[in-house]
């Protein structure tokens, strides 16, 4: 709803606003949906002036179509694929997190969602030398764990540089999450890139922690706020060309299969979804093994499955080469 005010566009005088209000036209939508000719007669304002106002308002408030050709050109020059730092996950994601998209990690407690977020954060800030915005809604962010991962792979001054590129916001309810996202949107992620390098990823761990308390019952404010969060995240991803990574819980459907939480409406929101699970094998004592299943993707066949080790982010490059036996790019893990 965009309320008509005088001075919001040239030609829209105070008298005109008052006249329109008398005819029950208070918003831009009202004005554009009604017949200009009838309206001019009813409010006794000049048809020409009204038509001019209508044109300006349309130009101000609409989104403009882009030719597919130009969009493709833009996309090819601006899209970056941000490696997660783990070759198995990269394989599922078709070589990494795509900027401009929303990717979701879903998994039960202890399935490694937060650890994967840490790994991705460290990889972007240290290996790719880019900034990350980390929005923590569970209090699960541990700076010492980030440092621990960094300590294993780099020297002291590099550790500090890498940590400076990680901007942390703590929010504990949906209102502060929306607030935080909207202020990031207004500043254009400017402030966050203080540590050098541009912001390449926004991580929200987790969306379900703030959204699930407001859902349920017969009220729809909760649903509305959930969709607002989704909307802001998607516009941030597209407008600033960053990769957005969110985490979510899982539930089981009627056949007992795992599916992402937060219900049907949210299920349409992420472009790519990975479900994380503990790797269950008899006799296995190693608890850092996880399986990742691709549950939604427009690039790869779904239900692809990969196993990976959560500890791979903490391995130094020497260890990496030792295990793999040959020199690989730093983004490749030993598997």
């Amino acid at each position, binding site marked *: 709803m965009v309320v008509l005010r005088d001075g919001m566009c040239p030609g829209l005088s105070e008298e005109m606003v008052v006249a329109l209000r008398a005819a029950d036209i208070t918003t831009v939508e009202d004005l554009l949906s009604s017949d200009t000719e009838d309206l001019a007669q009813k409010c006794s304002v000049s048809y020409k002036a009204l038509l001019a106002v209508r044109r300006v308002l349309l130009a101000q408030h609409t989104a403009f179509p*882009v030719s597919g050709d130009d969009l493709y050109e833009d996309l090819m020059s601006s*899209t970056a694929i941000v490696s997660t730092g783990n070759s198995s996950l990269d394989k599922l994601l078709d070589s990494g997190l795509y900027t401009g998209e929303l990717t979701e990690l879903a998994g039960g407690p202890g399935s490694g969602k937060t650890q994967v977020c840490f790994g991705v954060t460290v990889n972007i800030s240290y290996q790719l030398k880019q900034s990350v915005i980390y929005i923590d809604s569970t209090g699960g962010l541990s700076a010492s764990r980030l440092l621990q991962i960094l300590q294993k792979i780099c020297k002291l001054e590099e550790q500090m540089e890498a940590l400076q590129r990680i901007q942390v916001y703590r929010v504990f309810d949906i209102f502060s999450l929306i607030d935080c996202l909207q202020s990031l949107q207004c500043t254009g992620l400017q402030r966050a890139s203080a540590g050098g390098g541009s912001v390449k990823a926004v991580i929200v761990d987790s969306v379900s922690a703030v959204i699930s308390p407001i859902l349920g019952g017969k009220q729809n404010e909760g649903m509305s706020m959930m969709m607002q969060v989704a909307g802001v995240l998607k516009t941030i991803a597209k407008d600033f060309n960053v990769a957005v990574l969110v985490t979510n819980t899982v539930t089981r459907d009627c056949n007992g299969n795992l599916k992402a939480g937060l219900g049907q409406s949210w299920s349409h929101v992420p472009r790519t979804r990975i479900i994380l699970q503990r790797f269950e094998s008899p006799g296995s004592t190693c608890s850092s093994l996880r399986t990742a299943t691709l549950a939604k993707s427009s690039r790869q066949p779904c239900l692809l499955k990969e196993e990976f080790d959560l500890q791979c982010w903490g391995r130094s490059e020497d260890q990496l080469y030792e295990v793999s036996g040959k020199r690989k790019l730093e983004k490749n893990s030993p598997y």
Partner: protein
Amino acid sequence: MRVVFLTEMTTTIAKMMENGAQLFARLDGRRSLKDIEPHIFPDGAGPVQGDVVEFHGTEGSGKTETLFHLVSHCILPVDRGGLEVEVMFVDTDYHFDMLRLVTVLERRLGEEAREEDGVAAAESEVQVRACLARLYVVHCSTSVQLLLTLHHLESTFCSRPALCLLVIDSISAFYWVDRSGGGESVAKQEANLRRCSELLERLLRDCRIVVFATTHAIMRNYRHSGQASTASLTPAAAETSSSSSWRQWSSTHASDFDRPYLSRAWQRLVTHRLLFSKGEVTQDKKQLFSAACTTTRTVGAKCSSFCVMEGGVQFL
């Protein structure tokens, strides 16, 4: 006073006049999409000018893939088996994946020419670009913006006779935000969608375009859930089944999530309804999808099943 009256007269007349292109676009310029995909639509009942096709399904049931299949068919040149018409894609979900569309296009263009050398690759790039030039994409983030953008597009549609198809993915994107924004009154909750529908109705009538729109299946169908066959015997179901063919069809074939929940103004426009669902996984690990098409012009439903390959939708 008389001068004012005269100027108003001239502007009114100017508004009533149209140029040749507009007249052409309005009268006979648009192509019919009747034979766009015989696998999906019933024989002879494909979408013609003025039709609205609703794509309804849960997440991951193949709606977007099918849309890409149809859009690529529209923008491909005639000598490659396409329709060579222009398409306006309104993306409200921010799900439009250009890279995916390009992959589909490349595959369809490369079906005949299979050379791997650089010349062929460069040529295919030029052809893909030529196809993409027939596509326009616009992103909308609120229902108000959608409404105003549709108003703005009205003139675009009038002046471009090659523009035959308007795709809205999805029309239900702002459902929850609008519902909560409208307060207690249902009329207010639905105001924006109602206005969009009224505007679309006018566009369909005056410009003779075809509209494809997706709706997310987010409402669980409690009445029919479980015992679909007994549900059709209840008076309520019998009453609705007499009203239209798809109600009848859905009361016997109901999936859990096929309840139409959007504003009546929108429901009234829809002439074809495609219900998507996810099938089982075959032995060679292919996910099957199925689409059931019901129209207001035919009786019963036309079912088709497909799987999604790298090159797009493949019908079985």
